[in-house]
């Protein structure tokens, strides 16, 4: 197996074009998969020394997150806290401190586990993904990218994520078997805009209820353009239960998750709805 450790994006793309090799981000999934034999790459392009990929910054109305920003970096970032609250929340509970220090947001997408904690918040927040290869550069909505099979070409690098700055209120919650280190059994991220007393552009994303995290069109329709009150919340609960029932079908976890999702959905909204109404 060949091992490459480029120091720039350009070098990484050139190696990817010429060598049969897999990108290595933090390694918390890939190193394990190599060991169990689940993947056997003939080469590795370690992105750990490409420091530009770790940047978290604001440019042109977007929060730009480099693919190699770790969950710990994101969970400590003021910019993420202020502009992508649901993502910030997800970064507090993903894995353990050791995993968060190593695991990256780009790796979370590249590995694309059904239970990936980073993806529902990114979907709800309307994130776009910046992809690069030696021949092509593309910015594609995450929701569109997740519909592709395979997700990425072998020579395609996840450069980073762009989250539009739209003053969204957002929240995330997950159900795990315990607080730390738990793989999400179910996760919900919500983002919405508040216009006076009405909520607009409600986006709800679910994780661990299908092959990949997804945005729910129907929840968007049912919940957008309405007054935020108890009735709204209950309508959301019924609809989210219906979606989970549909998505899971006869799977063994279906009866459990169908009920559990109502609690996770309410929890994801906790940071948005306070007792006095919408949080300022």
């Amino acid at each position: 197996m060949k091992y490459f450790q480029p120091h720039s994006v350009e070098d990484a793309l050139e190696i990817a074009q010429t060598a049969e090799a897999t990108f290595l981000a933090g390694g918390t999934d890939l190193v394990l998969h190599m060991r169990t034999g689940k993947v056997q790459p003939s080469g590795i392009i370690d992105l750990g020394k490409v420091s530009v990929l770790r940047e978290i910054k604001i440019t042109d109305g977007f929060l730009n997150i480099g693919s190699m920003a770790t969950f710990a970096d994101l969970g400590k970032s003021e910019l993420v806290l202020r502009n992508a609250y649901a993502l910030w929340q997800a970064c507090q509970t993903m894995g353990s401190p050791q995993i968060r220090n190593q695991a990256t947001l780009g790796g979370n997408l590249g590995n694309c586990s059904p239970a990936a904690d980073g993806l529902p918040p990114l979907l709800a927040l309307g994130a776009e993904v910046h992809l690069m290869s030696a021949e092509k550069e593309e910015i594609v909505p995450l929701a569109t990218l997740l519909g592709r099979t395979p997700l990425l070409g072998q020579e395609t690098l996840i450069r980073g994520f762009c989250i539009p700055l739209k003053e969204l209120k957002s929240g995330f919650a997950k159900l795990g078997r315990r607080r730390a280190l738990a793989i999400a059994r179910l996760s919900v991220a919500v983002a919405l805009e508040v216009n006076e007393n009405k909520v607009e552009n409600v986006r709800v994303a679910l994780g661990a209820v299908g092959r990949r995290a997804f945005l729910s069109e129907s929840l968007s329709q049912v919940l957008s353009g309405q007054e935020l009150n108890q009735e709204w919340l209950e309508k959301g609960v019924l609809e989210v239960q219906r979606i989970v029932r549909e998505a899971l079908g006869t799977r063994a976890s279906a009866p459990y998750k169908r009920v559990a999702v109502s609690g996770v959905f309410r929890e994801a909204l906790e940071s948005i709805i306070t007792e006095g109404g919408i949080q300022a």
Partner: protein
Amino acid sequence: MIEINLVVNEKPYTLNVEPSERLIDALRNRLGLLGTKEGCGEGECGACTVIMDGKTVNSCLVLAAQANGSVITTIEGVGNRRSPHPVQKAFVEVGAVQCGFCTPGMVLSAKNLLDRNLKPSETEIGIAMSGNLCRCTGYDKILRAVKIAAEEGAK
């Protein structure tokens, strides 16, 4: 084989490692630092915790090559019998060690917390130690030891 440079416990090393070799393997087999334990081998238990560039990582999930250019602290670099680290002292005093297999990782997570935060709250201690499992003690004494070490250190 790839050539990598590491500083481990303040000593510089140049090693030739296999691309698929994990950091834990390099530490144990090439440098003979057997204090770093392999528990689950899949990032769940934290027994293999080391401090890499100021951050705790599971050395079973890091390739040795990824650590190229890094500064690493293993349990051997934390203290010894004659001059134990305050965390080690507190672990012994409280009786936070039973079989001892998780202890090196526990001590490194606690040391790393206290390096960054002189006066951690109980919640902060809980979060910092959440990636280390112990199957003997029930955690109470471990958390108490970290608290005592913090109080000692803050004096």
